[in-house]
């Protein structure tokens, strides 16, 4: 039996900006959801689901980020599937998409809406 635990999306403060290493990611738990937050540039962050739909494990925050063409992406550490950080689209088959979340930095603090 599965049970759904959906809560209303709210802005939640996660950590400080400097808790996230530049060009790397962290995982956070927000309203029951596992979210991967990436510091792509000094002050540019993206947040997506931490769940890799191909391997069904919560690992995306541990992937290497980079670019394909102009797109910012993360490659899953397990089987290297790459996801667009902005849209959550799986880059080799747009029919697979993972959730994305809003993220902002305020006074050196990172906030996510989930």
């Amino acid at each position: 039996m599965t049970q759904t635990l959906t809560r209303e999306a709210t802005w939640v403060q996660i950590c400080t900006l400097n808790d996230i290493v530049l060009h790397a990611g962290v995982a956070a738990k927000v309203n029951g959801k596992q979210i991967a937050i990436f510091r792509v540039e000094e002050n540019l962050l993206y947040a997506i689901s931490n769940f890799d739909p191909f391997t069904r494990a919560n690992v995306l925050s541990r992937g290497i980020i980079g670019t394909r063409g102009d797109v910012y992406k993360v490659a899953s550490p397990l089987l290297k599937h790459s996801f667009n950080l902005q849209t959550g689209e799986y880059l080799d088959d747009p029919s697979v998409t993972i959730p994305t979340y809003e993220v902002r930095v305020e006074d050196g603090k990172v906030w996510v809406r989930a």
Partner: protein
Amino acid sequence: MSTQNTHRLLVIGNGMVGHKFLEALQNKTHNMEVTVLCEEPRLAYDRVHLTSYFDQPRPDLAMGRIEDYQAWGIRVVMEKATHIDREQKTVHTATRALKYDTLVLATGSYPFVPPIQGKDAEGCFVYRTIEDLDAIHAYAQTSKEGVVIGGGLLGLEAAGALKALGIKTHVVEFAPRLMPVQVDEQGGKLLKKKIENMGIAVHTSTATQSIDLDGNKVKGLTFADGKSIEAQMVIFSAGIRPRDELARASGLEVGERGGITINEACQTSDPSVYAIGECALYKGRIYGLVAPGYTMARVVADQLTGGSSEFTGADMSTKLKLLGVDVGSFGDAFAQTSGSEEMFFTDPLKGTYKKLVLSADGKKVLGGVLVGDCSDYSNLHSLFSNAMDIPGGPEHLLVPAPAGGGTQVKATLPMTATVCSCENVSKGSICEAVVGGAQDIPSIKKCTRAGTGCGGCVPMVTDILKEQLLLLGQEVNNNICEHFDYSRQELFDVIRIKEYRTFGEVLEKHGHGMGCEICKPAVASILASLYNEYILKQEHAPLQDTNDRFLANMQKDGTYSVVPRVAGGEITPEKLIVLGEVARKYNLYCKITGGQRIDLLGARQEHLPEIWADLIAAGFESGHAYGKSLRTVKTCVGETWCRYGVQDSTTLGIKLEERYKGLRSPHKLKGGVSGCTRECAEAQGKDFGIIATEKGWNLYVAGNGGMKPKHALLLAADLDEATLVKYLDRFLMFYIRTADRLQRTSVWLEKLEGGMDYLKKVVVEDALGIGAELEAAMEKHVGTYHCEWKETLGNPEKMKHFSHFINTDESDDNVVMIEERGQIRPAFDFEKADLLPMISGD
């Protein structure tokens, strides 16, 4: 099956050309009854590579197989033709008479033996058939010195063979230089020098007066100038003469100096008789090369099956490796075209000589000579054979292009250009094959036969393949990824020479975009190989693949396995107990690995630091099981315990594992040391494997397990320990510096030009003079080794990154374990569904 309508085709001769003719004819002979007469005791074999008959293991030179001939419906008669009766259209052998409607003469040639006194003595040989080689081999056993008369292509081959048989060898050439037909004076000089350097005595401008005898046996040679040398063997290789005696006796037209006269259809003066190969004379010329013979064979096969192709002469270009020396000659090599100009380039240091013959306007290549380096041969030859305009100035064809830039000659080759002249394959057919799915060299060879003759066109075929794949939109460059226009090896050199220390610097100066999961770990690995800095330093950490990032191996559910180093597989009871205690404390699954270590699986990311704190306190250190780096050196118990062991393999294995631990490389590395030839450590299945002998250690390299298992190959034998370590240092560093990303040592060695021989030169002989540098690089690695876990535990800042969530101490609730055989394992999805509430996405 013979009926009145059946056309009887008889072929005399089953050499390379005769075979090619039958092959070209196959599947087209609906109404033909084909018979071939073969006088040698075997079907056609590859005479071009005859010298390799002395190699060990002996190669299979056979071309024609009886099963093939049966499948093609060809009758083989292993007899010599003695007489042709053209009136009766019958060929006679000693035992039978064979009727024909069409006769093809492929009788070839015989070696010319100059009329020198003593030429028939015991110890005199020719170099033509496998029987000749057997006889030479047998006689060489009792000889000390040997002479080859004739310094042409085949003569030098024969000299190489004699030399390889361990005989002091002389080459005597009447002309003022070696290979007078192909090579000019300068090229001949260089060739002579190279051959003399191999220990073969070369006597040019020398005429042999007589062969001196001891009874009926050869004992020496006397030259026209009165000088003499000792020798117990003489091999004649003074050219060939067409075998036209059958044709001559039957009244067919032959040339003044021999050869059966043929027309463009390869017909003799009797329209029902054809001649092909070295017995045929076309416009006063005998073609003593296999490629023109093949062309004639195809022309006749086509004529007989309703086609109309013609033979109109052939290119006498040659490219070969003689005794290891590249020699190439093509087109008008001696500048006989009126108004032609010559251009030269000599590099005395490298021992290379190149000459180009250019048209009067300098726009076309008419011919050329290459000695010492034939890498440009196929390029230059196609400019010549396709009469193409030279792109850029002709000087660029001779002087090596600066690194990075190359001539654009290859890309402009027209589709009709002949690429493989042995098999007459055009660029167009190769491109077609590539489009049709033949996308590597073996498939192209199979599909088009290009490159299956002399092999000289293979580099050109490779270029065409790459060009075509590019047109098809396929990735063929060796760039590491879209962010760098460099291969891993090029990146390695750039980083080493410019002394870059971070990925950021390299990307800024040489890359585009932000990098990715391919280039980031590759650069991280290169930086680690060069400087061996702590890999979780702020600027290095985001580059690491997850295993390196968390210093453990990520498993399918996002948990990790922990593998401490157990050097050589040797472990104390105390340490074994600690491993058991740690496993019990953190509820980890235990498994003995194939590399003699203990794997503790199912560790949650947030527990890794605590687990390692316990392990380090007990004296363990990182096993680098997570890295593309040295993993283990497997050992047996050796002479210490084993009744067969002849050396202490365990001690050596531990020493080597300690020495190379933490060494980052393009792929993971494993070693093995066995105490005797029974090989209980399976050392030959490793990247480096060492097997004890009574005299020392045998070193094998470049083996691996994995998807394509490969046995390691012997690099050096009976080494003392110091030499062994020296060679291993060099081998490993050379691999690290030159291999491609994620390229195993076995694949690296396969791709290494020159293969094992070259590797031996670099590692054992230090032919590149880089031995000391490679050893120093390894010393630096050994001196800067640190346990990454120890360093990480001492750094509170780093420890923070191991928590699963940044904002809570909770664990990943999607990690679920099930018990099996008394230990944990990850739950499968179908098991999880019943166990935990699913968290919905959005």
